[in-house]
Structures are given as structure tokens and as C-alpha cells.
């Protein structure tokens, strides 16, 4: 398996097959005397912006913190130990409703979309 080819940017689904996002970043742990080990994947606009450069990453993190508080100033992480299946999609053994990954969609649903008749 190649990390960049087979993991990065692939579709992430939870155990109910809900589309959560794409693998926007990878987190590896450096270990003395041993090869680095992948410990988590990252999701969200902050990790995406970081891939474009240091400055866009910093600005996006600041923007996220201003819009939705300090808790959202870091990218969402899902531990690698939760991975269940790696195919064309990558399935994690989590329930997205119990995470904060969809908090912006919940906000939209509550404050914008849900207020429009017929939604």
C-alpha cells in the first residue's frame, strides 16, 4: 500500500456508509530507531489549506477559530486504529453523528436550510 496513492484524498465513509469527506491529510508519528507510523487521518478545510501552503493554512485556521470558536481551530482527526476497510472508499468504524465533523452542516441545517420551506 502506498500512502499517497491509496489513502490520501480518498473518500471517507463511516460505518453507516455516510460520506464524511475526503482524506485531507495524514498524521504520522516519528519513532526513534523505527520507521514512522500513521496514527490518524485529518479532515476539513484547515488541513486542505495547509496543503496549499503555510500561509493559507494559518489564515484558514484563524478564520475557523473566529467563526466557530477555538475548538474548531484544528483539523478533525480520526484515529487510524478505527479503519475498517480500505477499498476505493475508506471506511472507518465511527458514527459521524457522534463527532464534530459535521457541525458546520448541522449549523447550516438549523440556521439556513431548515428555515427555507420544503426542506
Amino acid at each position, binding site marked *: 500500500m502506498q500512502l499517497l496513492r491509496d489513502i490520501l*484524498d*480518498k*473518500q*471517507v465513509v463511516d460505518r453507516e456508509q455516510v460520506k464524511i469527506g475526503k482524506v485531507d491529510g495524514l498524521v504520522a508519528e516519528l519513532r526513534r530507531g523505527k520507521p514512522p507510523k500513521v496514527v490518524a487521518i485529518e479532515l476539513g478545510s484547515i488541513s486542505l489549506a495547509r496543503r496549499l501552503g503555510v500561509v493559507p493554512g494559518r489564515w484558514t485556521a484563524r478564520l475557523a477559530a473566529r467563526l466557530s470558536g477555538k475548538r474548531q481551530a484544528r483539523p478533525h482527526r480520526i484515529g487510524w486504529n478505527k479503519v475498517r476497510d480500505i477499498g476505493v472508499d475508506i471506511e472507518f468504524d465511527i458514527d459521524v453523528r457522534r463527532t464534530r465533523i459535521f457541525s458546520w452542516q448541522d449549523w447550516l441545517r438549523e440556521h439556513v436550510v431548515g428555515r427555507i420551506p420544503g426542506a
Partner: protein
Amino acid sequence: MKKLLEISLGVVTSVGGFLEVGSMATAAQAGALFGFQLIWAVVLGTICIIFLVEMAGRFAAVSHHTIADGIRERFGFNAFILPLLATLLVNFLVLSAEIGGVAIAAELATGISFQWWALPVAFLAWLLLWKGTFGLIEKGVSMLGLVTLCFVVGAVMLRPEWKEVAVGAVPSLPHHDTAKYWFMAVSILGASISPYLFMFYSSGAIEDQWDKSYLGTNRAIAGLGMSFGGTISVGVLIVAALVLGAHGVAEVDDYNQLPLMLIPIFGFWGFVLFVASLAIACFGAALEVALQQAYLVAQGFGWNWGEDLKPRDDPGFSLAYTLTLFLAAIPIVLGLDPLKLTIFSMALTAASLPLTVVPFLFLLNDERYVGEHRNGLISNAAVIFVTALGFVLAVVTVPLQIFGGT
């Protein structure tokens, strides 16, 4: 029998996507100014889009991923962002032009200036997307699109010299207005080979839950549907050449000249048919382009998406088409000339082609996605040809726009 029904529905549907303000306006302009001489551009564009649509459908049916998914996943975010932004911009202009097309049809029908119609049109399109299902939009609107067949009927009734039509299908050098000739050729190619068309088609295959058993259906729909759409475009071109040319209208620079096309053939009903064709074709395309904008964003970032879901179940997706529709109405509200915008956005579409076509070469040969159904020699040759064509178009569009644009 079921397959046959499916194929005929699919063929009708793809006409709905193919024939829109761009193909109508470019074909009419080309016919008026150059007679049958630019038919080859419609034919070439149609052949190219047949291949791309077939591949987009095959990719989706086998891998259960859309082309936009594929570009992001295979090439990474940093490579994806360029086609993403380019396609969002081009689609935005095209959507604006389609809304303008419906608004012009409404102006022709009522006499009330097109600017007033842009927001009602956008609202009606939004309402259909908000409340409707994919099946309703795909089948309902495109069934109505059959009215555009009146151009084919009209072309036959005018009894053109079929030998000359055939001669027009072979590329030839212009005798006058050289820069304009090539600019028209580029715009026709841009109108036929639209990224939104094949990207929407691959999303539609997912919405309709295609699997490998649909590969034959897909091939038939791509081939027949796009040829059908191309035939109607040629019909528009022939009618424009014989009617507008004969009435001394060589340069179509105003939408008000266009309804003249069908009046000598059908009388007053020709006017009604033209207005209905323009309104329906553009409205159908507006729905598809608006949906495609939302598909593109949702698929690119991996959100939940689907036209059959309730908006509250995919808020990001439904907000994307809502914003896109109302923003795209603004240029028309402000009085931007829809015809100029149409021709401009078609040329820009042509220029953006390499960004969305190059990925086909990789995605359709990647066994992890398409397995044994990867491209054969002919399909790969076709992609390479379209890519090369795309690069040529990208380079020549801007100079031609300056020297040959209207």
C-alpha cells in the same frame, strides 16, 4: 424491452443536456454568416462528446465514482483545485447564459424586458431542484425538450441541397472573415464539448444507480443521444443558413433576429415554436448546470450529495445549487447581453477543456477504478485527440476572441 425503454429515455434525456443556448446560438450565427460551411465543427464536436460521455458513464457504472471524485482522488487536492476553480467559473458563466436564454424567450413572448425575468427564472429552477427528484428533472424537462425537433423538421421542409450539406461536413478554409470563421468554429466546439455535460452524465449515472449491467445501455445512450443532439444543432444551422442568409441577416448579433428563423416555414407557429424551444432547452440546461455546480463541490470535498435526498439531509449540497442559481441570475438582472455572454462562455469552455479532459486518459486506464473495462485503443486515441484539440483551442481562443469575437 425494459432496456429499450431505458435507452430511449436516456437518448431523449441527453438531448436535453446537449441542446442549450450555446449550441443554438453558435449554430445560428455560423449558419447565417457562413452557410453550411461550419457543419463540420458540429460533427467533430459531437463525435468528441460521444466518446467523453461514454467514458464518463462507464467510469461511473464500474467504479461507482463520478469523474469529479476521480480527479480529486487520483490526482490529489493540489491538482484538483485548478480544474475545480476553472470549471466552477465556466459553469457559472454558462448558467448565467442559460438563465439569459430563458429570460430572452420570456421577453419575446411577453414584451417585458429580459432583465425582469432573470430572478423569476432562477427561482423556478431553484424550486424544481429543491422539491423535485432527479428522475423528474432528468425525464420531465427533457421530454419537453423534444420540441426542439422542430428545427430538424424545418430544415427538411426547406429542401436544402443535401449535397452541399454533406460538403459542409468536411472542414474547408473560409473565403471571407477568416478570424471570425475560426472563432465560430471554436465556439461551436466549446458548445458541443461541454465539461458540464460529461460531468453531469457521470453524476446522473450514480443518481440512477448504474452498475456494470448498464455498460451496453451507456454506450447506446452516449452514441445515439449525442448524435441526436448534434442532428438538431445541424438543423438549427441549416435553417439559419437558408432563412437568415436569404433575408440578408448575415450577422446575428441580437436575439430578436433569431425568431425570424422559423417564421417563413411555420408562419406564426414558427415564432411560438422558436420561443418554446429556446425557453425549454435553456431551462433544462440551467437545471443541469446548477446541479452540476453542487455535484462538483460536494464530490470534490466528499460531502453527502444526491438530488433525491431532502435538502436537510445534504445541506452543503443544496445550499451550493441555491447560491449558484441566484448569483448566476445577477449579471442578467444587471442587463448583460445574453447573446454576447453565451458566445464568450462557449469560447471559454473550449479553452478550459484540457483541464477536464486530460484526467480521462489516466482515470479510464486505471484498473483500480475500471478494472477490465478500461479504455481500448480507439477510446484512448479519442481522448488523446480531444486533449490535443483542447490544447489547440486553449491557445487560439484568446487571440481569436480579440480578432474574431463579436
